[in-house]
């Protein structure tokens, strides 16, 4: 019986997953996991990112030195790198991570918990944050951060 040859290569050189859903004989892919597409083809790839909220990381409160729980519940916790350092926008609240201490010490802004995700804006080296549930901004009159909750 005669044997024929066929080649499937479009999906490996560009586009990857089919933007228009399943399409017969497109040569594209319906699944493409743990890879990226380059001129060479489908390359095995998982971004090399360090998770600082893994189980072996312990955060402590800067004042009480009691362990602080940062819950991993989508889309939290979020990280923000500002001119003054790293901030953690968690479901439990907003924290500044002090890099100069031996432990992963967190300074709490006292916001309380939130359900909406955080965004950040920085002006005059004063980062400000809002989540829809709470606004944290720097007040130059009182020279202090103000926490404004949704009421």
């Amino acid at each position, binding site marked *: 019986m005669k044997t024929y040859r066929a*080649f499937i290569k479009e999906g490996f050189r560009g*586009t990857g997953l089919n933007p228009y859903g399943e399409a017969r*004989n497109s040569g594209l892919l319906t*699944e493409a*996991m743990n890879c990226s597409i380059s001129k060479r083809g489908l390359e095995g*790839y998982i971004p090399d990112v360090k998770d600082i909220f893994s189980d072996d990381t312990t955060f402590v409160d800067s004042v009480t030195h009691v362990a602080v729980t940062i819950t991993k519940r*989508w*889309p939290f916790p979020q990280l923000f790198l500002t001119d003054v350092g790293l901030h953690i926008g968690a479901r439990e609240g907003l924290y500044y991570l002090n890099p100069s201490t031996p432990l992963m010490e967190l300074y709490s802004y006292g916001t309380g918990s939130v359900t909406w995700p955080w965004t950040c*804006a920085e002006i005059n080296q004063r980062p400000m944050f809002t989540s*829809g549930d709470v606004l944290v901004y720097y007040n130059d009159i009182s020279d202090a951060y103000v926490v404004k909750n949704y009421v």
Partner: protein
Amino acid sequence: MSNVTVTISPAGANTLGAKWCLAGVTEWLDSAETVSVSNGSYTIQYKYIEGYSTPAEEDVTVTGTTTKTGTYGALSWKASWQPPISMCFFRGQVITCGVKHTSPDNTFSTLLGNTNDARLVRWSEIGAFRFMGCTANDLRNEAGEYYIGESDSEMALRVIPLHGSVICYGSFSITEFTPVKDPAPGFTIRKLAEYGIKNPLAVDGNDTTQVFIDRLGYLNVLTVTKTGTKVKRIGYQDIFSPMQEVFSFVSSEGIISVVYNDEEDEYYISNGLKSYLWSSGDLTEMSIAFTSIVNMGGAILSSHDASALTEKPISASTLLSPSLSLLFGTDTFDLEMVAIKTIVSVEVVGSWSQDAVTEVMIQWKNNKGQPFRNTTWKRCSPMGFCAPMVSGVDFRIFARVTPYIDAVIESINLEWQLTDKNSIRGNYTNVNTASTNAG
């Protein structure tokens, strides 16, 4: 004649030069100063001072001795204003947008009370967190506000700079704010699209490109071109629409987050359960989800913990699958012939590490109305060959390489035979065509 005395508080405002006057009658007067005027109606005005909100003008009828108090506000965000949903910094100004609904689980059809602040965009004075209607100096004419959309069902969800402008993503529209100098500092405002996003995290990007998932589930790319800002709807609705169909901030469901990694110039699009990589215009899936990415540039996270020294970007990540395989599956193909065929061999063309295992699985069915059936996973030779011998009309080929590291797949090569005897005689020429064109 009558006497009018106005006391100004707080003390800090007086220190900064807070004053009052009777409009058109007196000069600026200090707190507790008394002025003698004829009986009649006057307007008390207060002088703007930096950092404080100015008390509202007050109409008074003066007879005998009149005493009033003017209180300057010490907060640069009014007590009556709710927290915005999102904010960003752009050319010296803070831009804020939106107010959340009381019920974030709904489809944003019910507004909080009768406020339309949900679609309000505010921009501050240049260089200060001072807004119109609060602590901004009206004479500078820098701070301002604008309501996006055309109805109160709109909700401004995210503001994010893009090159020379700020893009505001609403629930039903996308609006561009471009700064202008003349006739006064402000923004020209242009609607870019009549559709929006479902949550504030559904967009991210760099100075020239933003990627977002719209509320219908399409992946879109917004770019700066020579002729202006353009939105291009790419597709993938079949992937992203189900990912945000059931949507709730309270239960953490359906929240699609787009995260841009500036080091790799790629986007991670996840809802915490499924995760995709958008890179150079191609979409693939990942077994890990990131809530955000921060490139520390080798900075020290903790002076005690050496493992916290990191050259890598950092994030909160969720491993969605323990599998560390490169896995792919082709679209359905029939070799352009509706007849029973037999795939006799599959070659996975590419390269992988010496200790990697390559396997192939084929889905097949004999007519289009049937669901696909799966073969078992068959291990390939070190060169990527296997001989599955599967007959059917429609096929999909899946392959996986474990581990994924150093694996590169270039194509799939098939050898197949026409096994439907009824089709061979009349379609022989077409078979050759199919073999040439397939893939």
